C-alpha cells in the first residue's frame, strides 16, 4: 500500500468519525420542495457533539487551505437549511450562505466607503455574493462560530462580543460581489437601475425587510440563548420549536439593542409612536406579517409586547441602514436633525459612495446560487417567502434598495409629518441626497425648487434612494389585493391573517396610496432626469404629472401582469426559477437593457462580459484617482487565490519600453509578422478533430464535476500545446457565458521546472499562491485533493513535456495521475509529451494504468496540411508564390512535419526577398511573377536551414588544416578503420607534405590544427593530453572530405 493511499484512508476515516445525527423530526417540505421527494429537511443536526441548527454560522473545512482542520483554514458560512438528500453517500447536506474573510478578497477591493470604519482583518467578514456552490456536505463542518451583521459604519472595535458567547466571533458589515473597488454595505444605497426595476423590487425588498430584522442581525446574537433553550427543551415538536424561536427572537432584539447599538430609548420610542400613530399601510403590513408570525406563539397583535417588538425590529433595520444616526444617542428631534446634517456632510464628502452605488448597479446580476442561498435562510414555510424576496434583494434589488423598505427613511418620513422641524430642513437634506429626500418626498407639497436642486446636483443616490421607497408605496398599493395571494402559502401555513388586521391594512392603504402617488410623481421626475443624464434607455418623459401613477403602473410591468410577475418571484425559490424570472423581466423591459454601467465613464453595456472587458481597460490605463494604492491588472471574475498570484507577479515585469513598437507596414513585414510562430491564428487549421476530442473530454469532465486524465503525444511542432490552449480559450468563454462551470486553468511546463518534484510546488503556487517546499507542497496537495471542498472550482491542469517528470520512484507522475481519480479533487489533467509509447515505455504499470487510455496522437503534419497552415496565416496577403509554399511544405513534411520549421522557412524567405534581388521567376504566370516571395527565395531559405555547412567550412580552413584532414582520410584508408591515432596521422601528414613539396609544420602546430578542427567538430578527438596516442575520427564522411578538398 502506498503512502498516499494510506494517507487517504486515514483522512477518510477521520472524516467519517464525527457521526452526523439529525436533530428533531423532519420538517414538512415546502411547496417548492415537495417535488424533491427524496429530500428530507431537518431543523438541525448533531455533528459529533456539536449541535448545528439552521441559521447557525459554522466553519466549513476548506480543503484548499493550508490547514483545513483549524478555524483559520476554514470558510465561514451560515447554515440555511439542512437536509438529507436521500442518497447513499454524502447524503447529509446543508445549504449555506457564504461569508468570506477580508484576506480572501482582492486587495484593491477591500476599500470601504468613506464613512465606514476601516476593516478589521480578524473580525470583519464580508457576505459572499459570488457564485459559489452553496450545497455543502454537512460533514465538512468543523465547528460553530458566530457572525453578527451590523451596519457598515459601525467600527468593528466598538462591537462587543456577547459575553456568553463561547465561539469565535465575527462581524459582517459588507457584501462582496467580486466586482467594484469598494465593498458594499450589507443593505443600503439605491442604485441607478431604471425606476421600474427598482420599483418592482422595492416591494420585494420591502417585504424582505420585514423579515430581515428577525433574521440575520438578531438571530446571530440569539445563538447562545438558543443553545440554552435547546438544552432546556428538546426539540421534539416542530410547532413548539417554532414558538420558542420566536420568543428568542424577540428577546434577543432587546439584547442586541442594548449591546451593540446603544440607541437612546427616547428616539426609539418616538419612532415607534410615529409608526403606531401613522399606521402606514407599509407598517401595517409589516406588522401584520410579524403579528401573524407572532400569532403562532399566541400573541395578540394589539398587545403592548407586540407593539414594542415591532418597532424595535424596524428600528434595527434602520440602524443597519442609516448608520450615522444610530451610533449616537439622540434625545430629541432637533438632535436627529443635527445628526442628519452631520450625515449630509459626510455624504457630501464622499463621492466614493456614489461610485459604490453605481458599482452596485454593475453587479446587478448575481448568481442564482446566492439568491437561493438567501432564500434558504428560511426555516418555516412562511418565512421562506420573504426570504425568497430577500434573496432577490440580495441579488438585484437589495443593491438598489439601499434604502429599502422599512428603512429609517420611512420612519423619518413619518416623523416629518409629525414634527415640522424636519420638514423645514428638507431642502438641505435633499441636496445631500440621503434619507432626507424621503422626508421631502413623502410630503406631497414638494417644492419645485427642491426637485430642481436634486436634479441639478445629480445626486444619484438620493434619487435612487427615493425611488424605491416611493415605489414600495406604489407597489404596495398595487399589490394590496394581491398580497393575500402572494402570501397564500403563508396564510395556509399560518392559518391566515386575522381578518381585522387585513381590514386595518386596507384602510390605511388608501391613505398611503395617495401619499405614495404624490411621492411617486416627484420621484419620477427626479429619477427620470437622472436616467436621462445617464444615457439610460428609459423612455420616460421628464414632465411630472400627477396623473402618472397609472402610467407608472403599466410601465412598471409592461406586458406582464403584476401577478404574473410577482408570483414567480414568490415561488421561485430555486435559482433556476429566479433566474427565469429575471430573464423574463429583462426581456419585458427594453428599458433596462443596458444594465451594466461602467462606474468610471458612464458607459453602459448590455452584457456583463462587455462591462468586465471595459472595466479592465480602465484598470489598465486609468487607475481610479481616488483609489488608494495602485490598481493592478487583474483577471476578471477569478477567485481570490488566483488574483493573489497575479498581483504578486506584477512587480517582476521586464521594464516597459518607452517607444511604442512600430507596426509592420509593407506586405512582406506583415507576412512576416503573421508567419511568426507566436502569432497564433484564430483557428488552428488541420487540428479540428484533435481540438474536438480535447474539448469534448474536458467539457464532459467539467460538466460531470469529476476528474480525469488525458495523454497527448506527438513530435515537436505539431500543435499539441497550441491546440490545448485554444481549447481552454474556448472553454473559458463557455464558462464565462455560464454554459460551463467556472474552472481554474493551470499550465505547467516540466521544462521550466528545475526538477520533477517542483511540479508540486508550482501547482500549489498556482492554485493557492502559497510557497512551500516540494515535500510540504505534495502533502498539502494530497490533502487538498482528498478532502471535499464545496467552494472549489474544477481545476484543469496542463502538463507539458511530461517525460521530464520521470523520477526513479515515479512518485510525481503517480500522484499527478492519481489525484484526478479522487472523488473530490475535480482535477482534470492533460499531459503532453513527444513519444506515443511513453506510458508503456517509461512508466511503471501502476502509473500508466492511472493515466488511463484517453490518448490523442498528433501526427506530424503532411505537406498539404503544412500548406494549409501557411496559407491560412497568409490569408489576405499576396506575398507568396503558391508553388513556393508548396515547396516549403513538401520539404518540411519530408523531414519532420514540424510546423514551426515551415513557418520559419517562410519567414526567412520574406527576409531574403526583402534584402536580396533575385531574378524574377521564370514562370510565365503573372501571379507567380508578381509574387514577392518566389521559388528562388524559398529555395535559398531552405538551403540556409537544411544544408550542412561542413563542406564550406572545410574549404575555408587553412592549408595545413586541410592537409591534416587529408592525412586523416589517408590513414583511414591505410588502416581500414574509421579511427586513427594522432601519431600515425602525423606521419601521414609529413609524408603528404613531402609529396606536395611543402615544408611540414611541427607536431605542436599540427596538434593545435587538430584542436581547431575539433572545435568546429569536423574532427572528433579525445582530450589532447593523450598527444600522440590521441584518437581521431571524422565527423563527416571521408568522401565528403575528399570531395571538398579535391581541388586543393
Amino acid at each position: 500500500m502506498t503512502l498516499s493511499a494510506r494517507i487517504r484512508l486515514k483522512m477518510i476515516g477521520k472524516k467519517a468519525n464525527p457521526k452526523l445525527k439529525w436533530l428533531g423530526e423532519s420538517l414538512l417540505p415546502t411547496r417548492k420542495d415537495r417535488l424533491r421527494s427524496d429530500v428530507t429537511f431537518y431543523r438541525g443536526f448533531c455533528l459529533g457533539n456539536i449541535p448545528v441548527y439552521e441559521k447557525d454560522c459554522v466553519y466549513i473545512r476548506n480543503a484548499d487551505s493550508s490547514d483545513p482542520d483549524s478555524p483559520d483554514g476554514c470558510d465561514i458560512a451560515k447554515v440555511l437549511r439542512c437536509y438529507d438528500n436521500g442518497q447513499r453517500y454524502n447524503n447529509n447536506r446543508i445549504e449555506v450562505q457564504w461569508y468570506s474573510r477580508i484576506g480572501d478578497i482582492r486587495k484593491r477591493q477591500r476599500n470601504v466607503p468613506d464613512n465606514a470604519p476601516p476593516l478589521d482583518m480578524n473580525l470583519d467578514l464580508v457576505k459572499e455574493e459570488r457564485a459559489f456552490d452553496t450545497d455543502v456536505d454537512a460533514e465538512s463542518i468543523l465547528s460553530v462560530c458566530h457572525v453578527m451583521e451590523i451596519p457598515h459604519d459601525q467600527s468593528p472595535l466598538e462591537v462587543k462580543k456577547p459575553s456568553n458567547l463561547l465561539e469565535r466571533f465575527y462581524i459582517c458589515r459588507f457584501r462582496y460581489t467580486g466586482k467594484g473597488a469598494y465593498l458594499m454595505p450589507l443593505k443600503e444605497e439605491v442604485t441607478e437601475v431604471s425606476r421600474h426595476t427598482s420599483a418592482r423590487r422595492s416591494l420585494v425588498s420591502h417585504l424582505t425587510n420585514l423579515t430581515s430584522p428577525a433574521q440575520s442581525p438578531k438571530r446571530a446574537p440569539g445563538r447562545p440563548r438558543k443553545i440554552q433553550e435547546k438544552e432546556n427543551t428538546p426539540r421534539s415538536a416542530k410547532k413548539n420549536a417554532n414558538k420558542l424561536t420566536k420568543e428568542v427572537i424577540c428577546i434577543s432584539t432587546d439584547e442586541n439593542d442594548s449591546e451593540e447599538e446603544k440607541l437612546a430609548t427616547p428616539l426609539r420610542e418616538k419612532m415607534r409612536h410615529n409608526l403606531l400613530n401613522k399606521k402606514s399601510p407599509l407598517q401595517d403590513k409589516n406588522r401584520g406579517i410579524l403579528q401573524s408570525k407572532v400569532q403562532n406563539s399566541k400573541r395578540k397583535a394589539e398587545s403592548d409586547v407586540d407593539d414594542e417588538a415591532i418597532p424595535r425590529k424596524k428600528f434595527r433595520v434602520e440602524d443597519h441602514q442609516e448608520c450615522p444616526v444610530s451610533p449616537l444617542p439622540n434625545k430629541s428631534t432637533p438632535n436627529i436633525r443635527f445628526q442628519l446634517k452631520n450625515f449630509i456632510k459626510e455624504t457630501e464628502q464622499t463621492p466614493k459612495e456614489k461610485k459604490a452605488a453605481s458599482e452596485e448597479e454593475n453587479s446587478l446580476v448575481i448568481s442564482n446560487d446566492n439568491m437561493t442561498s438567501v432564500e434558504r435562510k428560511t426555516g418555516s414555510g412562511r418565512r421562506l417567502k420573504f426570504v425568497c424576496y430577500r434573496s432577490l434583494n440580495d441579488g438585484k434589488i437589495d443593491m438598489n434598495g439601499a434604502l429599502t423598505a422599512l428603512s429609517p427613511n420611512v420612519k423619518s418620513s413619518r416623523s416629518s409629518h409629525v414634527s415640522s422641524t424636519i420638514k423645514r430642513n428638507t431642502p438641505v437634506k435633499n441636496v445631500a441626497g440621503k434619507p432626507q429626500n424621503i422626508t421631502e418626498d413623502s410630503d406631497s407639497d414638494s417644492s419645485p425648487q427642491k426637485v430642481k436642486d436634486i436634479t441639478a446636483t445629480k445626486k444619484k443616490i438620493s434619487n435612487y434612494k427615493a425611488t424605491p421607497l416611493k415605489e414600495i408605496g406604489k407597489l404596495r398599493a398595487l399589490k394590496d389585493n394581491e398580497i393575500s395571494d402572494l402570501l397564500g402559502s403563508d396564510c395556509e401555513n399560518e392559518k391566515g391573517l386575522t381578518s381585522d388586521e387585513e381590514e386595518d391594512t386596507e384602510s390605511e392603504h388608501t391613505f398611503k396610496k395617495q401619499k405614495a402617488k404624490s411621492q411617486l410623481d416627484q420621484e419620477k421626475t427626479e429619477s427620470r432626469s437622472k436616467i436621462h443624464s445617464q444615457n439610460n434607455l428609459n423612455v420616460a418623459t421628464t414632465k411630472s404629472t400627477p396623473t402618472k401613477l397609472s402610467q407608472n403602473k403599466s410601465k412598471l410591468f409592461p406586458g406582464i401582469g403584476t401577478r404574473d410577475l410577482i408570483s414567480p418571484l414568490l415561488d421561485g425559490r430555486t435559482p433556476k426559477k429566479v433566474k427565469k424570472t429575471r430573464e423574463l423581466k429583462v426581456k419585458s423591459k427594453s428599458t433596462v437593457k443596458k444594465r451594466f454601467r461602467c462606474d468610471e465613464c458612464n458607459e453602459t453595456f448590455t452584457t456583463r462580459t462587455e462591462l468586465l472587458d471595459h472595466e479592465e481597460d480602465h484598470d489598465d490605463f486609468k487607475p481610479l484617482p481616488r483609489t488608494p494604492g495602485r490598481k493592478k491588472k487583474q483577471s476578471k471574475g477569478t477567485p481570490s487565490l488566483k488574483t493573489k498570484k497575479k498581483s504578486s507577479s506584477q512587480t517582476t515585469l521586464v521594464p516597459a519600453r518607452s517607444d511604442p513598437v512600430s507596426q509592420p507596414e509593407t506586405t512582406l513585414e506583415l507576412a512576416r509578422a503573421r508567419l511568426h510562430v507566436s502569432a497564433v491564428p484564430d483557428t488552428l487549421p488541420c487540428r479540428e478533430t484533435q481540438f474536438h476530442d480535447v474539448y469534448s473530454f474536458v467539457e464532459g469532465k467539467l460538466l460531470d464535476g469529476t476528474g480525469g486524465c488525458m495523454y497527448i503525444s506527438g513530435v515537436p511542432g505539431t500543435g499539441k500545446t497550441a491546440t490545448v490552449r485554444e481549447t481552454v480559450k474556448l472553454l473559458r468563454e463557455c464558462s464565462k457565458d455560464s454554459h460551463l462551470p467556472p474552472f481554474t486553468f493551470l499550465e505547467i511546463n516540466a521544462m521550466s521546472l528545475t526538477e520533477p518534484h517542483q511540479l508540486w510546488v508550482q501547482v500549489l503556487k498556482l492554485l493557492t499562491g502559497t510557497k512551500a517546499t516540494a515535500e510540504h507542497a505534495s502533502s498539502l496537495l494530497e490533502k487538498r485533493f482528498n478532502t471535499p471542498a464545496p467552494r472549489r472550482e474544477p481545476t484543469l491542469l496542463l502538463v507539458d513535456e511530461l517525460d521530464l517528470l520521470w523520477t526513479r520512484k515515479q512518485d510525481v507522475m503517480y500522484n499527478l495521475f492519481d489525484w484526478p481519480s479522487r472523488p473530490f479533487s475535480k482535477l482534470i489533467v492533460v499531459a503532453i509529451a513527444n513519444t506515443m509509447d511513453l506510458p508503456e515505455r517509461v512508466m511503471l504499470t501502476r502509473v500508466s494504468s492511472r493515466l488511463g487510455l484517453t490518448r490523442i496522437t498528433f501526427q506530424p503534419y503532411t505537406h498539404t496540411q503544412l500548406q494549409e497552415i501557411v496559407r491560412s496565416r497568409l490569408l489576405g496577403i499576396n506575398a507568396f508564390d503558391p508553388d513556393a509554399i508548396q515547396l516549403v511544405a513538401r520539404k518540411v513534411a519530408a523531414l519532420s512535419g514540424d510546423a514551426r520549421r515551415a513557418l520559419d522557412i517562410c519567414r526567412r524567405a520574406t527576409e531574403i526577398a526583402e534584402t536580396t534581388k533575385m531574378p524574377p521567376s521564370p514562370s510565365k504566370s503573372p501571379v507567380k511573377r508578381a509574387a514577392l516571395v518566389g521559388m528562388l527565395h524559398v529555395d535559398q531559405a531552405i538551403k540556409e536551414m537544411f544544408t550542412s555547412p561542413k563542406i564550406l567550412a572545410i574549404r575555408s580552413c587553412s592549408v595545413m588544416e586541410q592537409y591534416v584532414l587529408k592525412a586523416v582520410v589517408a590513414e583511414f584508408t591505410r588502416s581500414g578503420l574509421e579511427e586513427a591515432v594522432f601519431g600515425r596521422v602525423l606521419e601521414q601528414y609529413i609524408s603528404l607534405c613531402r609529396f606536395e613539396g611543402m615544408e611540414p609544420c611541427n607536431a605542436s602546430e599540427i596538434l593545435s590544427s587538430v584542436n581547431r578542427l575539433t572545435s568546429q567538430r569536423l574532427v572528433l578527438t579525445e582530450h589532447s593530453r593523450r598527444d600522440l596516442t590521441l584518437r581521431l575520427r571524422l565527423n563527416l564522411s571521408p568522401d565528403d572530405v575528399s570531395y571538398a578538398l579535391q581541388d586543393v
Partner: protein
Amino acid sequence: MGLKRQREDDEEGDGADDLMTQLQQHLRHNLTLWGSTHEAGEKLLSLYRSEAQHLEELMTRTLTLGESNSAMVLAPRGTGKSALLDTVLKKLERTGSLCEGFVVRLSGLLQTDDRHALREITSQLRLETATANKVFGSFAENLSFLLESLRFGSKESSKPVLFILEEFDLFCHHRNQTLLYNLFDVAQSAQAPICVLGLTCRLDVIELLEKRVKSRFSHRHIHLFPPDAFDPHYLATFTHLLTLPPDTLPHKDFAERWNSDVASLVEDIEVRRVLKRIHTTTKDVRTLKAILLVCVSGLSGENERVDAKRLTKAHTLLSGDSKTKLLHGLSFLQLTLIIAMSHLTHTYDGEPYNFEMVLHEYLKFSRRHSHTRPLPRPVVFKAFDQLKGLELIRAVEGNTRGTQREYRLYHLLVTSEQLSTALGTIQALPTDLQQWAVSAI
C-alpha cells in the same frame, strides 16, 4: 631578456623612447587577443557585409517591431564572431535603436550551469531591484521568477531583450537544456520580445539540442567563413594591425614614417614568406596578433622598425615545437632512455613497453660503449620517472592496478623527427649517443 631591454631603454634618449612607448601602447591596443578596436570592427563589417546586415536586421526587428527571433552565429575560432556582433551592437547603439532594449551577455565558459546563468540574467536585466525585498532562494524560484517576468511581458509593452550566448555549445550541456528551452520558448511565443543569439564554433551545434529545443529554435544560421585569399585579405589584415591611425601620435611625421615602413614591409619577400607560412598554418587572426605583439614589444628607441628578421624570430619563437624544446633540458641519461625507447617503439611498431625493457636497452648500449659505465638501476628508474613527470612518456590506460611500477607499460610521446631535431641542436652531445640515435633512426 625583457630586463635587459628595459635597461637599454632607460639608457636611451627620452624623446625617442616616449614616442616608442606611445606607439607600442597604440599597437598593443590593436593587437589584444580578445575583442577589437573600432577600426578592426569596421574592417570585419566590410568582410562580412551580408552576415552583419542579417544580424543587424534581426536585432532591429526585435528592437523596433518587438518580434522575437533566434539565430546562431557559427564560425571557427578567431574569425570574429563576437567582434562582429559587438560592431553591429555599437552601430545599433549609434542609431539609437538599442537604447530601447537590454543586452544580456552570457558565456558558456562563465555560466557553467543554469543556476549561474539565471543569476546573471537577472542581474543584467536589473531585475534584482524588483526582488530586493525577496530573498533569492532556490534555483527553482529563480527560474520561475524569471520566466514569469518574461511571460508577463508582451510584444507591445515590454522592453526587448537581446540574449547573446557565447560558447553556445556549452549551454547545450546544461541539465535538460532548461535555459535554452525556455529562452527559445519565449522567443516562439507571444511573451516579452527577445532575440536569442548563440555564438559558437561548433558546426554541429544543432545536433546537440534536444528535439523539442531544436524545434523551438528558428534554425537561422549565420556562418562566418574566413576569406580564403592570402594576398588581399591576410596582407591587408597584417597592414591594418600594424598601421597607426593618422592622428593618434603627436609626431605626425613619425606616424607617417611608421605607416610607410609597414606598407613597405608587406612588399618584403621574406616577410611575405613568413606571413604565408603563418597563413598556411592557421587563419586565426590571433596567431598573427601574437606574433606581431612580440615584434612590437621588442621595439625600442634604436630599433624602431619591424623588419623581416624580427618577424621571423617572433614566428620561430611562437611556433617552435614544444617537445623539441623540452628535450633540450634533459640530462644525457634521460636522452639515452628516450633514444632507447624510440628504438623500442620502432622495433615493436608502436607497441608499449615497460621500464625493464627500457633498462635492458640502456644496459645493452652502455655495455657496447665501454667508456660509459652503466648507472645503477635506481638512478635509471628515477630518470625514467622524471620523464613520466614531463609527460614525454605516458602510461597505457587500462588496468594497471597490481602491476609493479617497473612493469607498467608506457608509450613514448616523442616522434623520431622531434628527437632527431632536438639531438641536432643539443651541444656537446656524446658522439656515441649521437651515433646510436642516428643508427636506430
